[in-house]
Every structure is written in C-alpha cells, then in structure tokens.
C-alpha cells in the first residue's frame, strides 16, 4: 500500500483567507488542477481550487473572499497510506490533505509536525489510473470535428442513419472473415439482406475513396449483400442473448422495419414486446410492397425469423385503429408501459380526376401487396395494356411487376422530365430493357371509360418546363403548369395504377397529427402523449428503409430512457476490441464495380435481378476501402520525434512538433497521437507531440514503412456487445401462416 510521501507534491502558490477570488484567479488558473494553499501566520487553513468559479461566475469576484469558499485540508503524516489520506480528505469534504513530517529525529522528544507537501484528489486519481494500459477507454470525442473515439468516425459511418461500422465489416470481407463481417453488420442492422440490395447507401455518397477526382466510392452496399449471402448459404443464425425480464411491457404497432427494429432492441434488453400487425405476415413494406425480383424473399424470412425467435409476441391480422373490430390505441396505452406506433404510409393515393372510380383503377401499394401474396391482382390484363401514373421507385416496381405478370404494353407516365424522374436510374434502365415505355412531362387529366364502364384510355396534358429545388433535386410543385391550348395525349389502357404518393391511415384520435397529416413526434419518437411513441414513415413521410431502421433504434432508446431503464440490468455489456489492421494499398489498381444484372431475356419472371458476387469480386472491392477507422498508434517509448513520418506523408496529414524547434504545422490536424519526451531539451534531449489530420489521411501506411525506429502501427478500436452469437440455423423456425388476402 503506497504512502502519501510517494505522491505528495510541494506547495504551490499560497493565499490568505481575506484575499478575494479576483486577487487569486490568475494564480488559481495557472496552477490548476493543484489548489492554492490558504495560510495565515504559517498555519494551513485549507485549500481553494478552481471549482469555486462555478458558483461565483457572474458575481463580483472582488466581493468573494477565499475564507468563505475554501475547503478544509486535514494534516496527515507522510507515512500514512494513500487510502488513509483519502479517508481524511473525504471526512471533511476537502480536496487535499496536507502532508506533515516530524521535525525531530526518530528518537527525538521534539515531535512537532510541520507541513511539507500536499496530496490532492487529482493526484490520488492519477495514482489509481497509473497502470491503465488499455487505451480504448481513453478516447475523446472531438467536438464538431468528429464524432469518433479519438479516431474520427469514418465518413461512411457518419453518414449512415444507423451508424453501421462499415470500415470494419468491409475490412473483414477483405480478410475472408465473412461471418465476422456479417456479425458486425448485424450489430445495428437486422435487415442486411434487404439493405445490401435496396439501401439508398448514403455511406457511398460520403466515402473518402470518392473524394478525389476520378475516383469512385467503395461498393459498400454490395459488400454487405455478399456477407449476408454467405451467411445464408452457410445456414447460419444470430442467436440473441436475451436479458432477464425486467417486467416492462411494450406494444409495437406495425411490423415494418422501424417496428421490428424497435421490438428487437427492446426484447434483447429484457422487455416483453407485443407486436401488432394488420397484415397476415410481418415485414411491413418489405414483405408487401417490394416485389420478389428485387431481393431474395427467403433471406428476408430468415431475418424475420431471427427477430421473432427472440420471443416477441406477434399478433398478425390485428389492425390498430378506430374500427369496430380494431385494437384501440387507448386500450394499448392502458395495458402497456409504452406503445410505439410505426404504421408507415401504406395506403396508396389515387388522384381526384374524372374516372378514378372505375373498377380497373388501383393504386400501386394495393397492387404490389396483392402480388406479394402470390395473387394476380383483380382486373389485371394479361396480354393487355397498363398505365402507371408516377415516376418514383414504387412506380418502377409496379411497371416491372406488370411486365413480369404478362402485360403486353406498360407505360410509365410522369410529370418530371425523364432525366429528373425520382426513380433510381439503374431500375429505370432495367425496366426499359424489358419493354417499359416512358412518357415524361405530362400530367394525368382524365380516365376514359368505354360503353361498358371499363377503363379504355387515359388522357394527359403536356406541361411547361418546371423548376427543381437545387439542393434536394425535388420538383417544386408550384412550378408545374400546363401548356395552354395544347393537345392532350391519350393512351389506350386496360388497367391504371396510381403510384402518386402514399397516405397514412390514422390509428386513433390519441395520436397527434401535423398539418401534413403525419404523426407529430420528434426525432426520438416522443409525441407529448404519455407513454405514446411514434416513428418511421408515419412521422417523417415516405423515406428509405435504412431511415426506418434508424427510427426503430432511436425510439427503442427513447422508450428505455422514458421508463428509466437505460442503465438498468438489461444493459448491454460492451467489450473493447483493439486490433491491428493491415494495409490496403493495392487498392489503387482496382476500380469500382457493381453486381451484374440478370440478362434481359431472363428477367421476364420474378427471379432476382441482381446477381451475387463471387469471393474474388467481393474481396477486390473491399480492398478498395481506405479503412478510415484505423488510427496511428505510436509507441511513445520508441518514437524519437525524427519527423520522418511527417516528411514522407503524401497527403501532408502528419505534423511532428518538437518543442524548441521551428517546425511548421501545416496539416490542420488536431488529433494528438503521440506525446513523448527523450530527456531534457536543453541538454540534447527532445520533447514534442505528433498530430494527424484524419480528413487527409488515407491509411497508405507509408509513414509506417519509413519510420526508422519502427514505432508506428495501425489499430482499430471497437466497442462490441455480448448479445449476439452465431449458431447453426435451427430446423424449426417461427412459422407464420399465410392467410387469404383481404
């Protein structure tokens, strides 16, 4: 047990009890964190530290005397233990103990104790932490500059709505660690099979690889799909460790990506979760609105099974609303500790034009939902003509589905010019390859019936050039104007499908609404109604799948906070992993590629269009990643601050600062990665620091190669929880019955 003399420091500046804070502030600040010793007539009265500035801020410092704010400092012999010192310090609520020494020899009769030094609370803390070698907890978020753990978070991760640890799972694929990669993906993403194919990939938009002119981002989305395909083929399964029940019950209304994510997060933390879904199957729009040729529905079912196998109580066929047979929100609020409403916007909108009530007029959501139950939608004209009104992703899906179901002629008719259609360009291209016709720049005016009351044709009016928002690229609807006196364009049709927006069906009067008809809630899902949380498309409006998953995570956290369980027994246990990373410098020779598409001649059925990658393709593409999550690790005991790393860095991302030398700091880097000293600078030693600008660093490792003392390595720091493990897929999975479409 160490004694106080091992850590005691000499007195610094002293002051008198009658001094004011105004008098002592400069000395107090200069000496921080060591407090000033308050003495009078050579007697120690206490100490005063910088903490007194908090209550004194805004007051007249000249009127606050030291004596009124100082803290007592007990006297203790130098031979006392640190623990005894802390006990004495805490007993008087002080911040320091004054260490004393006997003035006589060991056998002297004169045993006066005189102060010889000070031990402060900060010194004790430093002593407790002196043997800490794990650097992982020593990470600091650096303000607005980055959100990371000393390592700036990779730009891709920063841009991802669910903060996927992208650089790690991409790196694992490059090493052939496909299962590890899949597990990293699963940490925040319960639907990688879907998002590996259909995510709008904001990560790729901000990939550092694409920052340079002529370079293109890493194909992150497809790497995710590759890992997931591998795990699926290997029959793997994520077995979630469920925390002991905490007795809380939460109802989730709507089993789409937001609701399922929230339900899974809460279930893993020990909540009893009841999931209400009005359809006969869970998945929301993933199951009912995205046609089979977009992704492998067996993989979706596999992921849904993994979620439901955690013990979520599923009520399919249960509509929550105001109807006679509906479950009422009021009842749920009375029965459960919290209710999360994530009902999405599942109702398609049919524009109010003449003829919209004809039997052969439907909306895309209804059309696709019927197809999802393996049904041919009513009035579908096999070998007939279909007109789809709208130019977005759902319109494209409806068009392709119509072609694959056997329509002879399919038109997509939209307001926007063809180069401004909201649909993804590759999907439009795919659809055109199998026969889609597009007529842009017109607005639907009338659906004409034949003499038997069936749809015969649709009339459209040409539009003047329109304006688009320069930032979002979205159409400014106020600029949509018909060309006056222009002749209408009429196209024969047997079925008209409106893909012109979705609306929300109000689940109950308890749910507050905005003027736009959406649910009023903040980004955490709080509605202002006790115990009621809402999120997903019903709050945000139609958005992307990954946004819905993000809503699920956020609302689960909000519910836990609301119920006061954030630090409760169900808390995930995080482990810190520090791993060295290899370089990816071969990456420069490879260019971006994307998965191939099934040849057009084979795309007339519901087979998945996007082809899987081979191992080689996936590894080559993952090697292109810069690994922006890796950080320099300098061995400070070895580094001699020679500056070689600074000199050779091709990106000028490193600054070696040697105190006393006039070295230029040009990188703009603020991340301190090395602080070392090799003796007194005045007698041939050196002392200094090394800073990195991680916005510039591309992890090329040239600094590592050129370091003459071999003190640089690259490391990744991860925080993982222990809630998941990989097992073989169980034979019996949750089997949800499919009932007839209603």
């Amino acid at each position: 047990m160490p004694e106080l003399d091992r850590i005691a420091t000499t007195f610094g500046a002293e002051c008198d009890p009658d001094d004011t804070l105004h008098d002592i502030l400069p000395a107090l600040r200069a000496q921080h964190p060591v407090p000033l010793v308050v003495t009078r007539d050579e007697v120690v009265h206490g100490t005063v530290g910088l903490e007194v500035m908090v209550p004194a801020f805004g007051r007249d410092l000249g009127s606050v005397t030291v004596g009124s704010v100082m803290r007592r400092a007990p006297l203790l012999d130098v031979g006392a233990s640190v623990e005894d010192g802390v006990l004495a310090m805490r007993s008087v609520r002080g911040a320091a103990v004054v260490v004393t020494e006997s003035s006589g020899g060991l056998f002297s009769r004169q045993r006066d104790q005189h102060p010889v030094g000070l031990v402060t609370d900060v010194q004790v803390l430093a002593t407790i932490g002196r043997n800490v070698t794990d650097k992982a907890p020593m990470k600091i978020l650096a303000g607005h500059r980055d959100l990371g753990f000393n390592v700036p978070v990779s730009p891709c991760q920063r841009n991802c709505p669910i903060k996927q640890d992208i650089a790690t799972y991409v790196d694992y694929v490059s090493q052939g660690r496909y299962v590890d990669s899949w597990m990293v993906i699963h940490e925040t993403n319960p639907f990688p099979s879907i998002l590996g194919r259909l995510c709008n990939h904001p990560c790729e938009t901000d990939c550092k690889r694409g920052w340079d002119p002529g370079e293109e981002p890493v194909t992150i989305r497809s790497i995710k799909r590759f890992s997931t395909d591998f795990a699926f083929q290997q029959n793997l399964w994520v077995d979630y460790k469920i925390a002991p029940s905490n007795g809380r019950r939460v109802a989730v209304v709507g089993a789409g990506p937001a609701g399922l994510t929230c339900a899974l997060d809460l279930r893993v933390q020990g909540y009893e979760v009841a999931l209400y879904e009005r359809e006969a199957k869970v998945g929301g729009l993933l199951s009912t609105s995205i046609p089979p040729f977009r992704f492998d529905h067996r993989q979706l079912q596999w992921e849904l099974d993994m979620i439901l196998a955690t013990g979520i109580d599923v009520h399919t066929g249960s509509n929550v609303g105001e109807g006679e047979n509906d479950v009422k929100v009021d009842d749920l609020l009375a029965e459960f500790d919290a209710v999360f409403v994530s009902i999405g916007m599942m109702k398609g909108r049919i524009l109010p034009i003449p003829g919209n009530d004809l039997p052969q007029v439907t909306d895309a959501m209804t059309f696709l939902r019927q197809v999802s139950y393996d049904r041919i939608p009513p009035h579908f004209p096999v070998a007939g003509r279909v007109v789809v009104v709208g130019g977005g992703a759902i319109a494209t899906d409806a068009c392709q589905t119509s072609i694959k179901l056997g329509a002879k002629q399919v038109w997509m008719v939209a307001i926007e010019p063809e180069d401004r259609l909201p649909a993804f360009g590759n999907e439009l291209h795919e659809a055109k390859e199998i026969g889609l016709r597009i007529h842009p720049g017109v607005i639907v005016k009338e659906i004409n019936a034949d003499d038997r009351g069936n749809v015969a044709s649709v009339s459209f009016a040409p539009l003047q050039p329109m304006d688009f928002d320069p930032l979002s690229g979205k159409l400014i609807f106020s600029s949509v104007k018909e060309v006056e006196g222009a002749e209408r364009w009429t196209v024969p049709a047997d079925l008209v499908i409106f893909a012109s927006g979705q609306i929300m069906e109000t689940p109950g009067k308890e749910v507050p609404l905005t003027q736009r008809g959406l649910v009023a809630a903040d980004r955490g899902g709080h509605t202002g109604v006790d115990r009621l949380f809402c999120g997903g498309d019903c709050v945000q409006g139609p958005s992307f799948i990954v946004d819905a998953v993000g809503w699920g995570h956020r609302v689960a956290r909000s519910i836990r906070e609301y119920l006061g369980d954030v630090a409760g027994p169900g808390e995930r246990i995080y482990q810190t992993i520090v791993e060295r990373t290899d370089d990816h410098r071969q990456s420069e020779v490879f260019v971006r590629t994307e998965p191939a598409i099934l040849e057009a001649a084979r795309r007339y059925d519901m087979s998945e269009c996007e082809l899987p990658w081979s191992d080689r393709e996936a590894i080559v593409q993952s090697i292109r990643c810069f690994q922006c999550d890796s950080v320099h690790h300098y061995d400070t005991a070895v580094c001699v601050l020679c500056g070689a790393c600074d000199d050779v860095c091709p990106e000028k991302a490193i600054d070696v600062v040697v105190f006393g030398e006039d070295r230029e700091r040009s990188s703009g880097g603020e991340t301190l990665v090395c602080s070392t000293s090799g003796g007194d600078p005045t007698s041939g030693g050196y002392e200094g620091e090394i800073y990195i600008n991680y916005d510039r660093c591309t992890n090329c490792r040239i600094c590592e190669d050129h370091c003459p003392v071999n003190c640089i390595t690259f490391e990744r720091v991860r925080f993982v929880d222990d809630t998941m493990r990989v097992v073989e897929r169980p034979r019996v999975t949750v089997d949800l019955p499919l009932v007839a479409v209603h």
Partner: protein
Amino acid sequence: MSSTPVAASLDPDRLAPDAGNPAVAGVMRDEVVFCLPSTPVDAIAKLMADNELPEIPVLLDRRPVGYVHQDDILDRLVAGDIVIGGSDLAMRPPVTAVQASDIMRTPPLLVDESQQVREVAAVMASQTRQVALVMHEDETAVGMLTARELADHILSHPELTGA
C-alpha cells in the same frame, strides 16, 4: 468629444451586445471526455486526472446516460474495492472490478450549445455540478463546460471580474 480611441470603439467584442455572456459553444472545451458503462474505474480515474475533470460523462451508444463523480471513486478506494498496487515493470493485474455502471449517477447535466454561458453556470451552481455536457441539436455531445473554461472566459473578459 469622446476620448475612446476609434480602434477600441470598433473592437467587435465591445460592440457585441453582451460579449461577456456568449453562447456556451463559444466558451466550452471543444472535446468530450467520456467513458462507457463498462469502463473500469481505474481508467476513469486516469481520464479525470489527465483531463482535469471531477466528473466524467457516461455515454451509451454515444448518448449521455449519466456521469461518474470522482468522490465515488475515492469512496471505493477507501472501501477497498480499488487496489493501488503493482509497478510499471510488473505484470499488471486488474486493480478493480468496479465499473462505471456500478457508481454512475444520473442524470447527466446536458445543455444546448446555444444557451448563454451565464445561464449554464447558474444551472451548474444550483445543481452543484462541475461539468456540463454541451449538446448539438439535442443529439450529439460536442463539448464540455467546466470551471476551467469559466475561469478562462473571465480572464479574457476583465470586466467580468467585477473589478
């Protein structure tokens, strides 16, 4: 005629409506020192000593969920739950099994970066807190305000000392 030099009258700090009471974003330290619920307390003690902080926020999924106060670590030392021992050369066994979650206090003191520094200092004083965590749009921790920053602010604005 005024005797104030023209240059001084154009000093932006003097022209500002209340230069002594800016938004906390302009005063805070531009980093967030934090720990996780699973961080062992010896590591937290090192964080406190290295960064001159009597309190360390606890983040979970990067969201503040509480804080660890140095008094609680010192109390655990007295109780024998933390052992100061070992040498720099010896094998380093764990010095404690106590983690942040064992001694965490709630709630963390969160303030918005647009709040005025005087208001934040008043909140800190009323709650006898030494660290305020500064948030951006209620979602991201972007800085910290402690007595050190308040002192620096006072020293750079002599009119605030009341002298």
